[in-house]
């Protein structure tokens, strides 16, 4: 899974497969981190959480 693993080969298969995998993980991770930050910001800004609907 990681380049330090014995099975790792620097070939196209690994680039494509692992590349996509880590991209997906990064996007998900970034999304979650962004949400945390936004939440912190919201909390600090003193908004009323029930004011805005989410639909």
């Amino acid at each position, binding site marked *: 899974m990681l380049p*330090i693993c014995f099975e790792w080969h620097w070939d196209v298969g690994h680039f494509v497969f692992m590349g996509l995998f880590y991209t997906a993980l990064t996007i998900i991770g970034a999304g979650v981190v962004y949400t945390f930050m936004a939440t912190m910001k919201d909390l*600090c800004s*003193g908004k009323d959480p029930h004011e805005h609907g989410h639909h």
Partner: protein
Amino acid sequence: MTTHEQGQAKRSHADWLLFVVGFVLFSALGFWGTPALLYAEKPQPFQFSHKVHMEQVSEGCKSCHSFREDGSFTGIPSMDKCKECHSDSPQGDTPEEKIFVEQYLNKNKPVDWRVYAKQPPCVFFSHAAHTENAGLDCAKCHGDHGKSESLRPYQYNRLTGYSRDIWGWNILGLGGPPKRMKMDSCADCHRENGVRDACFVCHK
């Protein structure tokens, strides 16, 4: 809402100190405690000086750790090998030799040495391929063991039962032989030297 915020702002620095304290304390605990937690010790049956023996023999390690005719490696020498030299009188010069002679040699009982470099049962390690074919020194993987004056205690992993020499002496589990003899170390060296890395090279 507002009081809540104020409280937070006032105390934050002290809080972060606690975070640091927790971090330092527990990472130290991890570094210090890991070996103690993971490894247990077993003493060797008695002391043995590779240094002393090396001075007596002419062909270095191979004098005792030899190959059999079929190309397999003897590993720990047999009692017959010991007897080649230890049959001469006088015996029992040192207390250790006395133990050896009395408890093992005279009873013709093999010594149950604990082998530091013992690999798991699924591993086929060919000494012939490394020392004869590739011409590597024993020390490449075994380090200064051949020059040691005494045997260190045998440490083994409580969970896996493997020798600590396999997982490695570096606390982070990094490095290669002689400090560590995991499959990664084998693979690294094989790759560096262009040796093929199919499973069935080293597995059985």
